[in-house]
């Protein structure tokens, strides 16, 4: 497929993510940071984000499974996740984290469980989109390098 078509597809995907509210302007900023000198920036950050998030989510799941939940720990992790998601511009994940922290403050276990599920759900939803996006980007880059060579 032509690179322009791929690019259009990528743009369409990102646009739809914006429109759905999955991403906010922070992601645009990220995109703007990516230029010739720093070609894989978005991909790098996104991968970093995914790794980080998965680690945090695993920790959170472990914490929440315990009989006595250590809310301060949970809160710290959620804060981290919130920070990284807002850096990436993952709006929905961020909002879910805010909700989560609220429940944490109230020491509301049920709420926390629910919020954790929401966060997970939002995250996986976003990850699938990101995966598609990265895949497209890889292809575009592969194409470009092919052309250059």
């Amino acid at each position, binding site marked *: 497929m032509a690179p322009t078509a791929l690019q259009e597809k990528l743009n369409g995907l990102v646009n739809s993510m914006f429109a759905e509210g999955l991403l906010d302007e922070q992601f645009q900023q990220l995109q703007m940071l990516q230029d010739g000198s720093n070609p894989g920036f978005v991909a790098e950050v996104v991968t*970093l984000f995914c790794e980080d998030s998965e680690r945090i989510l695993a920790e959170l799941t472990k914490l929440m499974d315990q009989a006595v939940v250590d809310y301060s720990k949970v809160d710290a992790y959620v804060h981290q996740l919130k920070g990284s998601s807002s850096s990436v511009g993952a709006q929905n994940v961020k909002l879910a984290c805010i909700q989560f922290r609220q429940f944490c403050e109230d020491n509301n276990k049920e709420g926390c469980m629910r919020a954790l599920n929401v966060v997970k759900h939002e995250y996986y939803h976003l990850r699938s989109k990101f995966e598609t996006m990265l895949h497209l980007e890889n292809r575009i880059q592969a194409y470009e390098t092919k052309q250059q060579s």
Partner: protein
Amino acid sequence: MVAGMAAAGGRRRWWLNRTAMVVVWVVVSVGIWVGLHWYIRTVSMRKAEEALESMCEERARMLQDQFAVSVNHVHALAILVSTFHYRKQPSAIDQETFAFYTAKTAFERPLLNGVAYAQRVVHSERGKFESQQGWTIKTMKQEPSPVQDEYAPVIFSQETVSYIEALDMMSGEEDRENILRARATGKAVLTNPFRLLGSNHLGVVLTFPVYHAGLPADATVEQRVKATAGYLGGAFDVESLVENLLRQLAGNQDIMVNVYDVTNISEPLIMYGPQNPDGFMPLSHVSMLDFGDPFRKHQMVCRYSQKPPIPLSAITTPSGVFVICMLAGYILYAAWTRYDNVREDCRKMEELKVQAEAADVAKSQFLATVSHEIRTPMNGVLGMLDMLLDTDLNLTQKDYAQTAQICGKALIALINEVLDRAKIEAGKLEIEAVPFELRSILDDVLSLFSSKSREKGIELAVFVSHKVPEIVTGDPGRFRQIITNLVGNSVKFTEHGHIFVQVHLIENSNKVMDAKVDTDLNGCLSDMMVPSDGTFNTLSGLEAADRRNSWENFKLLLSDEMPQSDKCKSGMPCSKDSSNVTLMVSVEDTGIGIPLQAQDRVFTPFMQADSSTSRNYGGTGIGLSISKCLVELMGGQINFISRPNVGSTFTFTAVFQRCKKIAGGDPKRTLSESLPTKGMKALLVDARPVRSAVTRYHLQRLGITVEVASTIKMTLNALSEQNGCLRSGKHPYILLIEKDSWTPGMDVYLHDQLLEWKQCGQIPEVPKVILLVTSESDKAKVGSFVDTVIMKPLRASTVAACLQHALGMGKQGRKEMPNGPAFLHSLLAGKNILVVDDNKVNLRVAAGALKKYGAKVECAESGKDALSLLQLPHKFDACFMDVQMPEMDGFEATRQIRLMESKANEQNKCGEADEGSERAEWHLPILAMTADVIQATYEECMKCGMDDYVSKPFEEQQLYQAVARFLLSKPNSDL
């Protein structure tokens, strides 16, 4: 199981208990019956007794009276005898006279069947007396009397008792005793009752003494005996006396009467009545009788002949009470039973309710879970399909894959809707309250539908009133969902024409409506106003369902808000006191409309206008019902006006809070300020006022002043007239032309004209010509001489991008404005910057951002690492520090750094004296990075020695400001 048995046992006991209660109640009722009956009987018996007593006394009294009358008569006879027999000489009375007189006066003595007079004769005088009378004295047995001390021969007698003449009364035991007592007492005396001769009735003999004259009243017994002349006697027929008496009285039949002589109390002698008394024995009354003989005592005994009847009331009254008791008992019993039944039913209902609620919750949870579980793999499916579509597929394969993708998307959309619906039903949907930018949300929604609207060639436009605050607090996601839903419907059902989203304050639009009504009343113009050329004053020129949205109204709204917006600009407080903003959003389309018969069930879930709709257009019909729920959750209302084949206008209101300014400065600059287009002027060529207003709205958001002309010729005229002022204006002039006005040939003409003017020096440079088009096909038709083409729908960001592109703004603008990215680049290039953040992602992003501007970035993942890197002397020019970090947070790290610095500075000062060092004081600019931009955090940052802060996802704008302040000022101070 056990509990069930216990319950059953309890119920049985309870039943027993109830039966016992019934028995007790019946027994008590019977007791009441008996008691009442007994009481009434007693009362009636007492009454009977009283009646008996009074009757008995009455009879006794009458008997006594009658007797006394008779005795008095005998007394009178005695006087008569004493007067006419002894006082007269010779005697005036003989047997004949006496008999005659007594016979004639017998009616006065009805009780005496006869009277007789016996003379007292002493034995010495017997011979003389016998010779005088001519008969000898005989005893009662008709024999000549034996010799006695004295005799009492009867000399006068009534004819009825003539057989006793010449009989010696003293020869009878009873009579003799009587005579002796009579003459001793001087009063009438009575004998014991005995059978009378002749009548064989029970009777008594009454004896009355007759004295010679001259007996004193208080004479002694001897004197009386001596003065005795004779005796008057009469036989009382007591039986007939009482019989007569009783016959005269009422109640004769009911009462049995016995009269007794009770002189000898132990041996009462019967005077009247049956020998063996019968009748009702238990109840009797005894009345004493006084017949004037002090020696004798008599009494009357009365009783009822029959037992007095039990009164009817003694049966009926208790029976009545009994019945009442039974009824009352039954009522209580029934009420109790009913109460128990109801309670039991209620308990069952309660159980059912709990079950139903549980089922409902389970249903919602099931829906949510299932939807969620479907959604997750579906995302994978869709992503893979996306990727599949990117690979080299032949046409058929591509078609299949695309179909699968479309279906998958539809499924996801449906699941999301069902999930929403379930959430709303479960009441779990909560409306958030976060500040958001209304206009950018609307822009986003528009962009979502931009490709579709372009395909169809529909005008899609949004207009937000100036009065609507930039930022409001509410639920952006839900607001977006409603708008997306309504616009999505409109796009789906509209083939040509326009879709127009408007947002106004409700007070405003109401005011305009009122004004409109006034004009309607005055002229009735608006409804009659069908334009002659068949176009309407709407966005696309097609008729809209809701005439209220016509240009007239729109103009009013615009004119109404103009002065208001001026006020805002001049710094006047334009926000009202109330913290709530009620927005009125309308989505107008010129689609197929909703059939009249379906209009009332549009908001019912899963109900589409008609079943053919889903065949033609797809969808489930759940969207509007969700929108309605959401609008209601936001405190608003939704309704619509629709005319088939004309279009529909959905209008809803929603309540938001005014957003208070975020402390520590406004992180989000208004769009117009951040863009280099501010202050530019543009000329818009558009024949349609509504459309031009919309375009103007978008351009004004970018800070561009807009003038409107309806045709290109007018534009040219305006240009040529204004060129004087134009020369002075330094901003490039933009010519925006709607594609309607862009007739073929016009482009060449326009271009030539403009070029000519430029050469003549009339205008400083040729204005940029920008064409506004709605569909892809239009884009193709555009000829040369157009600098750029903006595709509708208009969005502030796209317009800005296009303008920048067209004007080549990049190079020009940045030079003039100190806050461009290039400026930032120049500031940061070559600078060493330390970024401290525990979050790798954040770290990477921040580093990336700074690197982009040429800075050399080093990273530290904790406060401690940062401290070790910042040991003096160090090479860093600035430090970005995350506030919240484990172990050592940003505040603490900053404090430590400052401590280090101050120590170093003091040392420096000491050394400065001799060295005269050129080194300035150590002061590393430390900028906090924080996600929460609240005042408290800001203050704490300042307190611990930070210089400024940037909000965490980096924003170019803020970064400029912060960095510029420190990196710019520092070289200055150094210089």
